């Protein structure tokens, strides 16, 4: 490859220990997999070794990466890049354009579906991130709790969900206080918490729409109203507690459902008590909804930072991370879905999915996911959503119509300020 094209002004290589730093997600399963892959790479006798570090702790990965960029302490490679933040990194000239590597088209063409590849292209026509994995949000539910409540099938609609919730939420020990709930969500107005309730339900209720269309705000008012109303009914009925539940309430059957991604499968396999029966299903949809069921796909991508001294070697390691073998292990060890063409029909993965039906469900759902809009203010927009979600749904202080109306107005104001 032409190194000058990729990274002008790359420093002279240091003699002696040549190392590239790789930050992986701190999620225990994913970190264990990253360690395996790094150890293997280092044992293969490459001139440049890889040093693995878990992404440092912070309220969000984005906050940590931005701080690292400012401090000039970014790693060479990170595999926990949220697509919503890459625009900021690109504007700061913090990422390498990966499409300038000679074999980029060949590698990507084999792995990533064309539409997804197109969606991660930057405005300047270059690609700075590799779509690595997607974690579709689905409902994880305790089948026994549903059975005990007389619900034999996971409800597909809002009314079915609320009906089941009214049967499952109860006081088990007879002290007059509720101690078993339908589900639980963190209600604190923290922007990224809304991925797992309002935003995922909005994508679902709108039939796969996001907030923007061709860069313009285009919130589906009807879908938003329905989502606010759905959660309002949940909190009004007391089906989700307003307080924080200590520990993992799903493991100990204190809640019957959790909105989660495939990463939870390996966690449950390791930690679930023997008598915990669970399954996964798509999120419930509004009663009048027809069509495919969409959800939020928590996409995480891989990027190489432009301060790397070893762009070629970093690219080689990235190719190793996204190889078919590594993708297989991503499924096997971390229970996460690689973004790979025809994953479900690929003969190399077919047997795995036959043996792992839960993951197969997520892999099927992965085809019907939407991520986040690539707009500058997305975090702040979700912060606004959080405030109206809290006011309308959690505390019932405004109607869903008012909440959607005021939320759109607030988003327009903040976009105007940020222009």
């Amino acid at each position, binding site marked *: 490859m032409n190194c000058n094209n990729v990274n002008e002004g790359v420093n002279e290589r240091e003699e002696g220990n040549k190392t590239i730093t790789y930050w992986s997600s701190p999620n225990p399963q994913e970190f264990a997999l990253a360690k395996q892959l790094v150890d293997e790479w280092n044992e293969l006798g490459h001139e440049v070794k890889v040093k693995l570090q878990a992404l440092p702790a912070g*309220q*969000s990965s984005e*906050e940590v990466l*931005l*701080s690292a*960029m*400012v401090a000039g302490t970014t790693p060479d490679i990170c595999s926990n890049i949220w697509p919503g933040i890459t625009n*900021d*990194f690109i*504007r*700061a000239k*913090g990422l390498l354009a990966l499409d300038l590597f000679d074999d980029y088209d060949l590698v990507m063409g084999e792995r990533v579906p064309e539409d997804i590849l197109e969606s991660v292209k930057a405005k300047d026509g270059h690609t700075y991130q590799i779509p690595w994995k997607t974690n579709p949000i689905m409902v994880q539910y305790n089948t026994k709790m549903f059975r005990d409540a007389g619900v034999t099938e996971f409800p597909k609609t809002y009314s079915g969900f609320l009906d089941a919730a009214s049967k499952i939420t109860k006081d088990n020990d007879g*002290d*007059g*206080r*509720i*101690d078993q709930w339908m589900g639980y969500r963190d*209600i*604190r*107005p*923290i*922007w990224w918490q809304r991925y797992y309730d309002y935003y995922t339900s909005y994508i679902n209720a709108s039939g796969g729409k996001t907030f923007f269309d061709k860069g313009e705000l285009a919130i589906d008012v009807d879908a938003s109203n329905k989502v606010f109303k759905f959660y309002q009914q949940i909190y009004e009925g007391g089906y989700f*507690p*307003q*307080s*924080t*539940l*200590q520990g993992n309430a799903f493991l100990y059957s204190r809640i019957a459902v959790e909105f989660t991604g495939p990463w939870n499968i390996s966690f449950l396999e390791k930690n679930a008590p023997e008598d915990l029966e669970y399954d996964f299903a798509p999120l419930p949809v509004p009663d009048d909804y027809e069509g495919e069921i969409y959800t939020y796909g928590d996409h995480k991508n891989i990027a190489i930072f432009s301060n790397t001294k070893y762009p070629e070697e970093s690219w080689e390691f990235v190719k190793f991370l996204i190889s078919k073998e590594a993708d297989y292990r991503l499924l096997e060890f971390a229970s996460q879905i690689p973004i790979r063409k025809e994953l479900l029909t690929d003969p190399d993965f077919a047997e795995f999915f036959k043996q792992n039906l839960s993951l197969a469900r997520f892999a099927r759902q992965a085809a019907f996911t939407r991520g986040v809009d690539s707009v500058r*203010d997305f*975090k*702040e927009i979700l*912060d606004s959503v959080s*405030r109206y979600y*809290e*006011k309308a749904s*959690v*505390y019932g*202080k405004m109607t869903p119509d008012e909440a959607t109306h005021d939320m759109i107005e607030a988003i327009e104001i903040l976009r105007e*300020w*940020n222009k």
Partner: protein
Amino acid sequence: MKKLSQVIKPGFLLSMPYMAHLTLFFIYPVVFSLILVFHRWDVVTPMEFVGLKNFIRVFSDEVFMQSIINTGVFLVLHIPLQIMVALFFANLLNQKIIARGFFRTLYFLPVVVSGVVVTILFQQLFNYDTGLLNQFLYKLGLGQVPWLVSENWAMPSIAFMATWKNVGLYVILFMGGLQSIPTELYEAAELEGASSTQRFYYITLPMLNPTIVTVIVLSVIGGFSLFIEPYVMTGGGPMNSTLSAVLYIYNQAFNFGHMGYASTMGLFFAVIIFTVVKIQRKFVETEVY
């Protein structure tokens, strides 16, 4: 006789470490933030001059105004509570009681425990559905209190927690003040037939005034920087009722990358603090004996 330059040089050299510290951690940040108020800067891309836009936004930002009011509410709740509780325990621990040293240490313990740890502990204590406080109240037939999930209760709960966390420090200050009051005053008052309440109001309280001023000043400074408690416990909710000014400024700066706007709010907030401290000094310090 030494030349002037011979005196200045070592003096200059000796003050260098402090000057470096002052420049790096005070002058530079202040000057930089004053530059930032006229700019938009998201940390990763170059600054963009926006004139007075950030100032206009500050005055039209209802959430920021609410965060200032919330901080004021916290101060109004926290400071009197802190003084009363600290004074009560300082009086108690100033008596000749058994294991006085042990109790003094015990009251000081929360001060040295990490703020985050205390906050997480109280988050569980205040938990509406599963918290110990509500379990206890429910067993007494008093019902459950929405400590952190009600607009009306959340800030008083945080003020209570902050008092518990910091009271040990103020107990120590008050005890120092109590021990410096001449015993002759009490003896004379006793001879004149003053009751213990009268002795407290007419001797202890006036003589403690300098300590009370110190406690108020320290509490106001601490109260204005309210951050960890709402950050961990409530995220600023319910419905912005615990969103402190510092938490809002932090979110704008580090979550949303509005460094210029955050600096402008910081400047505005600094003016408020300065004004409050000036007023406070005028009204409280005049009473110092």
